[in-house]
C-alpha cells in the first residue's frame, strides 16, 4: 500500500511541484496545508506517514508547526523544505524535531533521497 504524505507550503506552485515528484515515486498525497495551524490540524486528522513542511508560512511558521506536531506525535516524520541560505532556521527546525531537509529549488533525486532517509 502506498505511503501517505501531507504537504505544507503556502504556495500552490510549490505544493504542486513536490506533489508531482512524490506521486511519480509512488506516494499518495492525502492532504495539503497552507499555514502552520492547518498543518497541525491536518496531521491530527490524517496521521500521514510523511510530512513535508515549508519553513516560512503565515499563521504559525513551519518551525513552530513541527514543534507542535512532534510534541503530540513524537514519531512524526517531517521533512523540512527551505529556501537557500536559511541555515540557522533549518538547524532550529531540526532541533524542533524535523528529521531531514531539502533546499529549493528541488531536484527530484535529492528530494527522494531525503524522503528515504526520513522514512528510515
Amino acid at each position: 500500500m502506498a505511503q501517505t504524505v501531507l504537504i505544507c507550503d503556502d504556495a500552490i506552485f510549490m505544493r504542486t511541484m513536490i506533489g508531482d515528484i512524490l506521486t511519480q515515486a509512488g506516494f499518495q498525497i492525502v492532504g495539503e496545508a497552507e499555514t502552520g495551524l492547518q498543518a497541525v490540524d491536518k496531521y491530527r486528522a490524517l496521521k500521514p506517514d510523511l510530512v513535508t513542511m515549508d519553513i516560512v508560512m503565515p499563521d504559525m511558521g513551519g518551525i513552530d508547526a513541527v514543534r507542535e506536531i512532534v510534541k503530540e506525535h513524537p514519531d512524526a516524520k517531517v521533512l523540512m523544505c527551505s529556501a537557500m541560505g536559511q541555515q540557522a532556521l533549518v538547524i532550529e527546525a531540526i532541533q524542533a524535531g524535523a528529521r531531514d531537509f531539502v533546499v529549493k529549488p528541488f531536484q527530484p533525486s535529492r528530494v527522494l533521497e531525503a524522503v528515504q532517509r526520513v522514512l528510515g
Partner: protein
Amino acid sequence: MELSQYGELFLSESREHVSAINDLLLKLEAAPASREPVEGVFRSVHTIKGMSATMGYTRVADLAHQMEELLERLRKGKGAVDGALTDLLFESADALEQSIEIAVEEVESEGPEISELLARLRAAAEDTAESDTGGVEMRLRVVVSPGSALPAVRAFMTIRAAREIGAVSEIDPPEEALLTSAFAGTLHFQLRTERAPAEVEAALRAVGEIDEVEIGAGGAEDVARGVEGSGVAGPTGSARARNIRVDLRRLDALMNQIGELVIIRGRLQRLAELRDAPELEETVDRAARLISELQDEIMQARMVPVGQVFDRFPRLVRDAARTLDKQVDLLIEGKEIEFDRSMLDEIGDPIVHLLRNSLDHGIESPRERRAAGKPPGGMLRLTAARERSQVVIRVEDDGRGIQRERIVERAVAQGLVARDSMTALGDEEIFQLLTRPGFSTAREVTDVSGRGVGLDVVATRVRALGGILEIASRAGEGTSFTLRLPLTLAIVRALLVKLGTETYALPMAHVSETVEITAEEIRSVKGCSVAVLRDEVVPLLSLSSLLRCGADDPARRLRTAVVLERGEHRMGVEVDELVGQQEIVVKSFDATAETLQFFSGATILSDGRPALILDVGSLLAQGSAAEAVAA
C-alpha cells in the same frame, strides 16, 4: 590583610565563573551524555578553588574542592549523569555562589551550613567510582559532501546523531560557530561509545550527504592536556577581544561630567554669539563638535549586550517551572542587542517579574494545557530587537491570556471606572489598568511572583527610563508584554520646586542660588517686581504668574526664590517651595512651542509621578523683558 585589594577582582572573576557554571549545567541537564559541559564546569570550579584558597576563603575552597572531586570522576567517564546528579550540581553551584558573596563580605562565620552538602557530594563521588561506564574513545573525522546545499546543517545533524550513541566532545569547528559562520566541510570530534566502529559509521552516514567517515583511536590524553593548558583562559575559552575592566562608577562619573559639559557648551555658544567675535565663535564651534564626539564615545562605552542580563534567565525559569510543576521552553532571541549599562541594570528586575508572571499566571499546568488542546509544554519567549532609536524587549507566552472581564469587574469594584464607559475602552486600555498600583487580579500571591514587585512597579520603572509598556493578549492563547525603551539616557542634575501641588524641575546648571526673601525686600519698579540681593537688583518673576497656574498669596511674608543665571542675565523665580536636588532622566516630548513655552522636557520623579522640566532660556527671556521695562 594585603590580599583585600584583590577582593574585587576575585569577586568579579568568580561571578563570571559561576554564571558559566550555571549555563553549562543547563546544557548538561538537556544533554546528559555530553562531555563538554562537564569539562567546562570542572575548569571553572577548579579556578574558583584556586582563587579562593589564595584569598584564604576556606569554606569556598572546601566546597569547590568537593565539587571538583565529583566532576573529576564524571570527566573520566565514570558514572552517568542523571536528574538527581544535575540537581545536586545545581544546588552546589548555588551554595558556591552564596559562599563566595559571603566570604568577600568577610563574615564567613555566618555562611550557610554546607557540611551536609559536602557529605552528599562526597557520597556521589564515591558512587561514581563503582559504575565505570565502558566504551571506547574514538576520534572522528567527517566530511560533508561539497554538493550539499547546507553543509553546516549536516554537520549539526552529525553531532546530534553521535550524541544519540555516546558522549561527544572536542568538537571542531565548535558548535556555536556552525550556526553563524561558514563551514568548510570537515568536522572533527571525540566520541566515547560502546558501539562498534561499523555501527558508528552507519549512524553518521544516515544523516545524509556525508562523503567520508574516518574513525581513529584514542584521544584521552588530549583531553587532560586541554584542561591544564587552559587554566589561564576565561570561562568561555573562546577568542577574547582586547578589553579592560572598568569600574562602573567611573563610567557613571564620566556620564555626569559629559552632561555638564553639554550644558556648558550651550552657554559658550550663546556667549560667543553675543560677543560677535568670529574667532571666538569658530573656536567654540570646534569645542562644541569635540564635546559632541566625546559624548558619543562615552555613550558607546556604556553600551553592553543585553545577553549579559538575559544569561541568568534560563536558570531562573527552569527553577521556577520546577517549583510550579509546569513544563516550559524558554526561547531567547537578540542577546547581542546593545543597551546602555545603567538601563540594563534597571530592566533586569522588571523582566524577571514579567517572566515569573507568565510562568505563574500565564502558562497553565500540563494537564490544563492538554485539556485545552495545547501541547503540554508551554512556550515563553524573550526577545530583544532594535527599532530605529528604540530597543524593544518582549516577553510573550502561549498561556491562558488575560481575561478582560475579570479586569473590568475588578476596576468597577474598585470604583475606578463606571461599567458603561468600560465597553468603549479598547483591550489595550483595559489591560493597562493592570499597571495601576494595588490592582492585581491574581487570586493568591504565590511564592514565585509575589515578591512585592507588581506590574505597577514594572510600568513605573519603564516610564522612568523614558519608555512604554504595552500589553497585548488573546484569551486562551497567550499574552505579550512589550517594553519600548530609548537607547540612551540624558541624566541631568535638577532642582525640584513646588508650585501648589505640582513639582517642576530646574536644571542645576543654570541655578545660581536659592534665597528666601521677606516681603519688605521686594520692590516694585515701574510695575515690575525686583528683589535686592546683596548689592544687586534682580528682576523677580513669580512662576505661578508665568505659568498661569496656582495663585500668588500676597499675605505671605517669607518668599522662596530660585536665582537663575546665564551669562550676565540673572533673575529670580519665585516658587512655593523647594523640594530638593535630584538626578533626573530627561525625556523630550512633542509639543509645539506656543503651547508649552516654558518647558524643555519631562521626567519621572523617583516617586513615579511625572514632572515637567522648565526651560531656563525662556524664563530668562521673560526676565530680560522685565528688566528692559524697568530700566
